[in-house]
Structures are given as C-alpha cells and as structure tokens.
C-alpha cells in the first residue's frame, strides 16, 4: 500500500505539483502586494537614508563624496542636536508620565459614575480626534498674553498676565501640558478598555474577604492590567518621541531652542539649511534610539501577551 502511494506520488505531473505548491503557499498571493508596497515605502527609504548619511549630499551641489561616518560624528558632536535630543527626552518623560497618570485616574473615576457616562466619555475623547496642528493653534490663542482666555482667567484670580510661550523657563512645560491635554484621553480609553476585560471573580472574592480597595488596586488591578499599561506607555512614548506638529505651530523650537525636538531640528537641518546627509544621519540615530526603547518595552510586553 505504501509502495503504490509512493509510485503515485512520483508520477504526479509537473502541473499537479505546481498546483499543490501554490496551494501550500497561497497566503503569499494575499500578502505579497501589501508586503511589496511596505518594503518600497518604509524599508527602501530607510536604506536610502542610510546611504545618504554616508555621503555628503546637498540639494545645491551635484558632487556627492563618500564621507563614511563623518555625518554621524558631526551630529553627535553638535550642541543643537544634543540639546534637541535632551528636549525630546524631557517631552517623553513628562508628557508620557503626565498623560498616563491623568488618563489612568480618569479611567478609575469613570467607573464610579452612572448617568451621563457615555456623554462624558464622548467629550473627553475629543482632543484625540483633533489634528495636533489644530490643537497647537487653538492653545496659541488660549495662551495669548493680550487677549488669551488663560490670562483673562488668571486675571480674574488676581494673577498678572504671563507670556508662557515666550519665556525660556516656561515654554517647554507649557508645550508639554498641551501635549498632555491632547493625549491623556488615549491612555484613558486604553486603560478603560483593559479594565472592562478583567475577570470579575477575583475582585469579588477579595472584597468579600474585606481586602481594602488600595490593596485590591495594588495586588490585583495593577498586575492584571500590566500588558494594557505597557501598550499605553509604548504608544505614548513613540508619539512623544516624534513630537513635531504642536511645537512647530506653538513655539517653532524657540525661545533659544528650549522647545526644539529632534523631529523639528532634523527638519530644519534638511530643509532650511539644506544639510540633507547630516539630517539623514540624525534620523538614523533617532530610529536606532526609538527602536531600542520600543524593543525593550516590547520584550516586556510579549512576556505575557499572546499576539498573532
């Protein structure tokens, strides 16, 4: 019987085998178009950019001498690049932690209300849906020293007018606060969705046994929400790291580069100062950095989340 099977097998015509091969590999017919486009629009540009960073390319000149890692050295030795990297780090730390704490708090609070819950949720998520550039422009108006509502309100409380965006000491914090205003609802939505999936039983039995709410929160809620918390932190970190739109319209990096982010600095290097190769080197450094951060967070995340 096994013999006849084998002879049957070897007698299969080429076309049958080809057919079986396509059946086995049929997923590629579905995936290949998307994959090819993604290789073309994401991977190829990154390779291209890496290439550009190894030469001295400008928009003005035709000659493009090979300079090795010189552009990377120049970038790392450039005070403005380091300054914008440190600013970006500031944005990441404060915008992520601020929006996380606020979003988490709102997620906990909204579980305690009944009537009007849907309306509250709807209002709270408006900022996420706004274009960041619109948010920035709106807050420019709110913060205007002459007629802005913030100063008008402070005036009612007897606090003299402030020029938050024009002063080096307050500009960075102000931009971060606006960023938090826009993105804490995202954390809120994610945490709330995560809490909705938690099983009821452990919480009920803990409550029956008289465990305090604080202990329930620390020993049950937080550990069970760990993967959800990581997703929220990961998404916020990645977005804060690339901050551009809000800063571009609110301060454009000023005063004195105190609000300059990496994206803004590299944009300027490439398009205002036409130093394409140096900007490319900077962007590759930026990619490596965010790659490292998210890889670490991913490893932590996938330890207990099943994806795929």
């Amino acid at each position: 019987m096994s013999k006849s099977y084998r002879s049957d097998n070897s007698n299969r015509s080429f076309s049958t085998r080809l057919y079986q091969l396509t059946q086995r590999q049929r997923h590629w017919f579905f995936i290949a178009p998307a994959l090819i486009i993604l290789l073309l629009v994401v991977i190829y540009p990154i390779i291209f950019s890496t290439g550009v960073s190894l030469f001295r390319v400008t928009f003005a000149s035709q000659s493009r001498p090979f300079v090795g890692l010189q552009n990377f050295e120049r970038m790392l030795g450039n005070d403005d690049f380091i300054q914008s990297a440190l600013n970006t780090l500031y944005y990441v730390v404060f915008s992520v932690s601020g929006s996380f704490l606020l979003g988490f708090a709102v997620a906990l609070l909204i579980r305690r209300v009944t009537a009007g819950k849907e309306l509250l949720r709807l209002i709270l998520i408006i900022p996420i849906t706004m274009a960041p550039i619109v948010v920035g422009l709106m807050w420019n108006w709110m913060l205007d020293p002459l007629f802005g509502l913030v100063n008008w309100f402070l005036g009612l409380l007897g606090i003299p007018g402030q020029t938050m965006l024009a002063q080096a000491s307050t500009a960075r914090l102000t931009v971060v606060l606006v960023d938090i205003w826009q993105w804490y609802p995202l954390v809120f939505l994610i945490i709330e969705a995560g809490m909705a999936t938690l099983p009821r039983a452990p919480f009920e039995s803990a409550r029956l046994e008289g465990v305090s709410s604080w202990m329930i929160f620390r020993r049950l809620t937080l550990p069970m929400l760990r993967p959800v918390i990581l997703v929220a932190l990961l998404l916020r970190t990645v977005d804060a790291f690339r901050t551009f739109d809000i800063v571009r319209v609110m301060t454009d990096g000023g005063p004195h580069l105190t609000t300059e982010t990496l994206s803004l600095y590299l944009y300027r290097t490439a398009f205002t100062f036409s130093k394409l190769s140096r900007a490319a080197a900077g962007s590759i450094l930026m990619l490596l950095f965010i790659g490292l951060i998210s890889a670490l967070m991913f490893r932590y995340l996938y330890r207990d989340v099943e994806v795929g």
Partner: protein
Amino acid sequence: MMRVPTSERVLAYVILIVMAILVIAPVLAGSITAFKPQIIWVSSPPTWIFEPTLENFEFVFFTRKGWVYLRNSLIISVGSVAIALLLGVPAAYAFARFRFRSSKALMQWLISLRMIPPIVVGLPFYAMFLYLERGLGIGLRDTFPGLIITYQTFLLPLVIWMMRGYFAELPAAMEESAMVEGYTRLGALWRVVLPVVWPGIVATAILNFIFAWNEFFLALILAGNRTSTLPMTAGTYIVRTRVEWGNLFAVNLIIMVPVILLTIALRRQLVKGLTFGILE
C-alpha cells in the same frame, strides 16, 4: 455593576465634569471666534455676545481658496485609504485564516512600523522624489499619487492589524461551507465573508481616514502649491505680526467637525484602531 459609596460617586462626578470642561471650553471658546466679525477677534476681555457671521468662512473658503485645500485633503485621504484597504484587506484575511511559518513574525514587524518617526521616511522620500524627477523625469513631489503612496507607511500596517482582528472574529466554517458548495477561496471571500465583515471595513476606513485627514508632517515636506492640504493651510493664517484668528478658527472648524462626527459614529471601535489591535 460596582457598588460605590455616594460620597465617592459625587467626588468622581465633580472631577470628571471639571476635566470635561477643561476639554470642551477651549474648543468651544476658540470655535466661536470663527463666527465673530473681525473687529472683535481679539477683544479683551473676550466678547461673548455678538451677532454671528459667516464672513470668515466665506473669506477662507473663496478668497483664500479653502475649497481647493478641502478638495485636496479629500482626494489624498480618500485615495490613500482606498489603496490601503485594497492592499491591506486581502493580507489581513491571510493573516487571520492561513497558518504559515512567518505569520507571527510578520505581524510583529507590522507593529514595529508604528514606531518609526515620520521624519525617518519623510526625509528620504523627499530626496527620492527629487532624484526621480531629475533622473527619470517622473514627478511625484507635490502630486496626489506621491502623497497617497507616502501615506501607506502609516495606513497600511494599521489596516492589516485592524482587519485581521475583524476576520479572526468570524468562524472559519463560514468560507469552508461556501467552498464545499463550490465557491473558490476568492469567491467565498468576496461573496460570503466580505458582506459579513463590512462594518469592520467601514470602521477601519473611518479611522484611517481620520489619520490621513489630520496628517501634517509628510504633507509639509512632500506637498506643494498643487496639493496643499487643510492642516497645511491652517498655519498660513499666522503672519509674524498678527494672526487672523477668526479665519484661522474657521479653517480649524472645517478640519475638526467632520472628524468629530466620524468619531461619534465610530466610538466603540476607536480603541481597537488607536492601539493597533495589540489589545485583543
């Protein structure tokens, strides 16, 4: 339902209502500026009672060619979402239904694309478009196809992730029984699965539309006079010396209102899209 002491509930209400006011007040206060006549744009203290006018909208729409930018934004957003769905839906179907060795690694690779800052692709795109134009005479900078292709960098991975989730929710028996009845795999997908997964496709399309509609950075680098989008023109109402606030908020409203309406329609699906479906 959780049993909550009344005092705790009152406190929750108070805090949440304050948060909601902090969200809605700037949006509303700013938006009404769009309906103010020019002389009270910058009045201090702010004027709350006035006769609303549509002249700011008229000005930005016709005098400043706002309708052209609205049209550009629509062409780019709808076009890029259509392409992303066309390429992404079949791929998502394969990831949801076929078991193959590299599937998990590929899905994780797709999430990792979400981490790439736009400047990392925007910069080489600008240079590549420039070389294509100089070398081969193919002009993609400041064209709709150029922007639509570029937008795939953030739309396509999201479409695949969201749609994979929707396909995975359906029982595989659905197509299998259709295939027993003589449909091919593609026929079953087209005739049996797509009609059922339709709401998921709509949700995916809406969320991706919002992302494309709000996009600013890549448009700033790669669009020009012919393809300027609404978010790009918003910035043009700031001139060094003065800002045309009424006009600016009119543009802001034109950008904001469609998205807010779509969000209300979509709110239940929002988390899935915003988190890339990592939470499932």
